């Protein structure tokens, strides 16, 4: 796999701002590939013990239950400049649990939900998660081969996301394509902030 240029290594300042973008979606959809295509380091893996929220499985008992799960996270880094570093976090394993992890969403700038048109349902959990927590997200429809079975509109309709949520086709093996997904996310976040500010001013 090819990684973004490591020759532009910049030593971050200790007062740098670190930001986090989440890469979510079903198992095997290409999350770590996306991270690797723009990261200046080979994607690293770390493990975190996270607390699951009571998931309603034990509703019968009426008792709130919490338990911890060890999750693996693959992540990469983009050093924008000495003062600004962006980390991309993907969740390669245990996907059936990850949507319970509030800790992951905390402090994240936004998210990319990667969709695979052969298994669209596998990203519903991610979409619900970000909608519930008001985390801005875009949907990237990852095309593994050149034959795209559905149009963006068809995917949007099937996923039933809000009209303002960007949905775009991508090939996350290609750095330019991943960059397009990330810049679309950034523009989306800025647009949402702009709307919120106007609402305050006009309100």
């Amino acid at each position, binding site marked *: 796999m090819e990684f973004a240029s490591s020759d532009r290594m910049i030593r*971050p300042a200790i007062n740098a701002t670190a*930001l986090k973008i989440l890469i979510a979606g079903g198992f095997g959809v290409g999350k770590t590939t996306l991270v690797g295509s723009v990261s200046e380091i080979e994607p690293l*893996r770390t493990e975190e013990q996270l607390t699951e929220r009571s998931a309603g499985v034990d509703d019968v008992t009426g008792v709130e239950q919490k338990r911890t799960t060890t999750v693996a996270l693959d992540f990469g880094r*983009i050093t924008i400049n000495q003062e*600004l570093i962006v*980390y991309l976090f993907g969740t390669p394993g245990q996907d059936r649990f990850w949507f319970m992890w509030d800790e992951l969403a905390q*402090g994240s*700038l936004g998210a990319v939900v990667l969709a695979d048109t052969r298994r669209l349902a596998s990203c519903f959990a991610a979409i619900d998660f970000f909608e519930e927590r008001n985390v801005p997200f875009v949907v990237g429809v990852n095309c593994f081969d050149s034959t795209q079975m559905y149009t963006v509109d068809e995917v949007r309709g099937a996923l039933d996301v809000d009209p303002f949520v960007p949905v775009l086709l991508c090939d996350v093996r290609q750095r330019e394509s991943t960059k397009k997904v990330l810049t679309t996310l*950034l523009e989306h*976040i800025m647009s949402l902030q702009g709307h919120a500010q106007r609402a305050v001013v006009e309100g």
Partner: protein
Amino acid sequence: MSGEDSAWFDEDAGPLARPYTFTRGRTHVARDDLNMITLVVALRKHHRGELDHAHGRILECCQDPISIAEVAAGADLPLGVVKVLLSDLIEQNYVIFRTGLAKHSSAASPDTLQKVLDGIREL
């Protein structure tokens, strides 16, 4: 991802050493102001015998400013354990840290977002 030569266990098996072996059985939790992307940096080196192996290893990982997630990956220890070890090092003035973004995404200023956007475009 692991290749065909990987062992019979996988990450679902969890860490193979009990994490709290490394923290001398302490059960206190890490500082709650540390997270995956908190940046840490060593203020000074340690002298022989000052620190145990695990703390020394962590300190060596953060000679340059680095996120806690990267320290954990570099030291091959779970994040939770690394946070406890770093908390000790912070308390003993070996390490300083800076918490990045506050808990909510709205904390990123339009100026910061623009810089990130420009930076990604230039990759």
